[in-house]
């Protein structure tokens, strides 16, 4: 290889994104062959990943790392071991077939290029997810799969159902994603590393284990559609079929399963882990299987079986025995192969026959023989007949439960029941549409194009080839994957030989038998289940709407409450906050203590004594009060404006009395101008002149005003008890003439010491001029 390992693996994660960006262009250039051309990208990745198989088996893992945010100690690190390689090969392999399939499925669609781009971007994200060693990178790819899935589910965007499915999937998986993020952060907090491969026993031993477990399970359960988050997956079937085949059966939904498998070495194995996973997994298995039997839409049936399969995988990881883990690894591949195949078959049926309803389809095998072969191969694997990969998966899962403890028996019963129902569904899917009498369909069916057939056939053949090459299956798939999950070497004991003495055989036979029963009684079961559903009255799916609409209504309520558009209430909030800010810290911290009389009656006696104001100073204070009072009580606005002038004059006089002539002049000028402008404006307006507020408003406003006023006064008095550090003014006084060459210190401060303030100040004046001109100019425009 020309490239180093780091670069090559990084390229694997990045290439699909580049391809995604180019997809619309490629589609435009190569029109009918877009699928074929773009499928080359995943195919190349698949081929490259195959070259890693030997090194991974030899060394246990291959890792690579490129710096991403070194300043945050964050690397885009990848870790290829048996587990991630299994997933990555599945993703890229099926990805190639799906891209090919999509090109034909959506032939002529105006947004085919966009679609292929999203699909490739998703594949890149998914590959990144399974290859990432760094938890943040994992999280990033995790979220990207959610986003691309959102875009793909909503591809048929003019239908509300699509949009709903997309938003629902996004919201649910995003909630889980938050769990993953928090989990990663908690782990980092505990261990100081972002690398999954560096984690040991620290987490299990810590007090935060429960929280970490909860966070990761949140992520895994939402992504992998475990009960009670299962409902988004069927709705995701609003997406075009290739998407369902790829994202919502074979790959993305397996992200949660992958996460659980990946975290098993350092998070799993505890009682809580086993209990939760087995319970939720088992419940999901049964619920999904029952759900599948309820449906008549082929795609919905498959979606429900996907839920069941995900539950099964979670259950197996929860069990955590060697056999269970081995079974999970096998089952993942087997499921990906047959389920993607089945979806593609259903897509082909839908595409060619124009319907997916199992009750109106029949006898298609004549018209679509190759499709039928594909369906049969996949269904047989799903049933778990020998010579398919599904068979081994089933054998392995039963194998671990032969200790015959009570708990094992319960789990075994659940497994057999679940598998039987899935087998029944598989038989339905294989037999109903293709065999039996020919039924009329909306379109006259004929064989699908090659690009749509390649997928199911190839995947079905793979399933058989793997199972025939039992030795290699053990060596190349089971052992590396299971060893990676369990973090210790396991051995393979797969064999095609059938041993009649083993209970395994009988369990399998029981499964098939029950499956056949389910198949025969499908119609009855469906009626029963539908009746039960109707009796129940609501579903988690409905609940989602209730919650979402409730949230929207609640938001509207809160927003209307807080943003009612009444300025007066906004101001009440502000002044309420002001009253609190003024008084609360002072009260809590004992700030008013300095004002209280102390035992020694220190300075207090001075304060108690009559303030040493001169008579004219009292006069000015009185004038100010009179001004304020008359503003308050003014019978009309002109009096109020005059009164405003009085209090302004009083302020100017206070400035004058206490040594601030510049201030006094300015205040005086400003006051005159304010009154003049006010009067100018007022004469043009005829307004209601009384301040009529209701009594309760009066009480509220009065209280707020009093608290704010008293608060400011008291705070200022507390400030005044200290002595002022006059360094600044002292220096200004000392240097004003000698250095700054000015005798009016205030003016020197304004133009020299603090001239920068003045610069800003005149900018404000200029800005006010501009703003007012803008306002006035409008008026002229409006009136003319």
């Amino acid at each position, binding site marked *: 290889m020309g490239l180093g390992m780091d670069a090559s693996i990084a390229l694997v994660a990045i290439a699909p994104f580049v391809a995604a960006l180019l997809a619309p262009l490629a589609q435009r250039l190569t029109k009918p062959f877009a699928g074929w051309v773009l499928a080359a990208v995943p195919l190349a990745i698949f081929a490259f990943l195959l070259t890693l198989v030997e090194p991974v088996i030899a060394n246990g893992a291959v890792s690579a790392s490129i710096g991403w945010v070194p300043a945050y100690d964050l690397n885009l690190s990848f870790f290829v071991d048996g587990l991630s390689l299994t997933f990555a090969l599945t993703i890229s392999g099926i990805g190639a077939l799906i891209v090919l399939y999509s090109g034909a499925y959506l032939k002529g669609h105006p947004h085919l290029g966009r679609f292929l781009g999203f699909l490739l971007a998703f594949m890149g994200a998914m590959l990144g997810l399974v290859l990432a060693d760094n938890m943040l990178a994992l999280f990033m790819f995790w979220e990207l799969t959610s986003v691309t899935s959102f875009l793909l589910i909503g591809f048929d965007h003019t239908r509300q159902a699509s949009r709903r499915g997309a938003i629902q999937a996004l919201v649910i998986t995003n909630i889980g994603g938050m769990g993953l993020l928090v989990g990663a952060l908690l782990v980092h907090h505990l261990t100081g590393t972002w690398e999954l491969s560096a984690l040991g026993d620290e987490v299990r031993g810590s007090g935060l284990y429960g929280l970490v477990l909860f966070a990761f399970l949140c992520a895994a359960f939402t992504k992998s559609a475990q009960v009670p988050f299962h409902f988004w997956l069927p709705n995701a079937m609003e997406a075009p079929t290739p998407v369902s085949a790829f994202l919502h059966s074979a790959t993305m939904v397996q992200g949660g399963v992958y996460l659980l498998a990946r975290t098993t070495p350092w998070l799993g194995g505890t009682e809580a882990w086993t209990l939760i996973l087995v319970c939720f997994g088992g419940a999901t298995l049964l619920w999904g299987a029952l759900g599948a039997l309820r449906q008549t839409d082929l795609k919905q049936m498959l979606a429900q079986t996907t839920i069941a399969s995900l539950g099964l995988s979670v259950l197996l990881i929860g069990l955590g025995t060697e056999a269970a883990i081995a079974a999970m690894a096998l089952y993942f591949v087997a499921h990906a192969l047959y389920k993607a195949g089945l979806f593609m078959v259903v897509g082909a049926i839908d595409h060619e026959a124009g319907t997916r309803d199992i009750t109106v389809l029949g006898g298609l095998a004549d018209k679509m023989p190759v499709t039928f072969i594909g369906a049969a191969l996949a269904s047989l694997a799903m049933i778990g007949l020998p010579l398919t990969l599904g068979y081994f998966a089933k054998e392995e899962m039963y194998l671990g439960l032969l200790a015959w403890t009570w708990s094992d028996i319960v789990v075994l019963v659940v497994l057999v029941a679940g598998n039987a129902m899935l087998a029944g569904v598989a038989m339905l899917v294989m037999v109903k549409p293709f065999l039996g009498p020919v039924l009329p369909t909306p379109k006259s069916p004929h064989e699908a194009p090659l690009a749509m057939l390649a997928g199911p056939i190839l995947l079905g053949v793979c399933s058989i080839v793997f199972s025939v090459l039992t030795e290699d299956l053990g060596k190349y798939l089971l052992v590396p994957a299971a060893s990676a999950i369990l973090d210790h070497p396991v051995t393979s004991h797969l064999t095609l030989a059938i041993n009649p003495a083993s209970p395994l055989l009988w369990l399998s036979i029981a499964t098939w038998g029950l499956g056949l029963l389910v198949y025969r009684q499908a119609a009855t079961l469906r009626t029963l289940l539908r009746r039960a559903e109707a009796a129940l009255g609501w579903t988690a799916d409905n609940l989602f709407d209730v919650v979402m609409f409730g949230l929207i209504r609640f938001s509207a309520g809160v927003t209307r409450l807080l943003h009612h558009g009444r300025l007066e209430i906004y101001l009440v909030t502000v002044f309420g906050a002001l009253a609190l800010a003024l008084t609360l810290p002072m009260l809590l911290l004992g700030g008013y203590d300095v004002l209280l009389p102390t035992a020694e009656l220190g300075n207090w006696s001075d304060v108690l004594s009559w303030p040493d104001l001169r008579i004219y100073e009292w006069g000015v204070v009185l004038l100010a009060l009179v001004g304020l009072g008359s503003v308050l009580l003014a019978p009309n606005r002109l009096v109020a404006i005059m009164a405003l002038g009085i209090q302004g004059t009083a302020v100017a006089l206070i400035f004058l*009395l206490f040594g601030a002539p510049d*201030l006094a002049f300015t*205040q005086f000028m400003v006051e005159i101008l304010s009154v003049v402008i006010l009067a100018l404006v007022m004469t043009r307006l005829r307004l209601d002149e009384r301040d009529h507020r209701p009594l309760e408003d009066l009480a509220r406003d009065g209280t707020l005003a009093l608290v704010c006023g008293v608060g400011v006064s008291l705070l200022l008095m507390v400030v005044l008890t200290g002595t002022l550090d006059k360094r600044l003014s002292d220096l200004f006084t000392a240097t004003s003439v000698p250095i700054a060459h000015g005798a009016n210190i205030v003016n020197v401060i304004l133009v020299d010491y603090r001239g920068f303030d003045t610069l800003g100040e005149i900018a404000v004046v200029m800005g006010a001029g501009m703003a007012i001109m803008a306002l006035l100019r409008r008026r002229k425009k409006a009136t003319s």
Partner: protein
Amino acid sequence: MDYVLAALIGCFIALGVYLLLSRSVIRMLLGMTIFGNGVNLLIFTAGRLTREVAPIIPSGLDQPEGVIANPLPQALILTAIVIGFAMFSFLLVLAFRAYQSLDADDTDTMRVAEPVDEPNPPLSY
């Protein structure tokens, strides 16, 4: 005497708050002015009061002869007065224009930007 002024400032602030809470725009403007005057007085008082001696150095001298008023707060207040006046003028003209085009001087009836009967958000996807 500082305490008397502190109490007076409290009155300014209280009246400012009270007027700002009335819904009539002109009254609110009066309130804003009074509130601003209170704040200016507060800065003045916080810089401690000195009677009558302006911070101006008599000509021919390098240093003032005795205690003078604290010049820094005065400069700050001067800036604040000017800025306050600029803002006041703007708000006044704004109120005037708002009255003309919205036909309202009561803030409760100014409901163009945030309409009263805003419909609820659609319950759809």
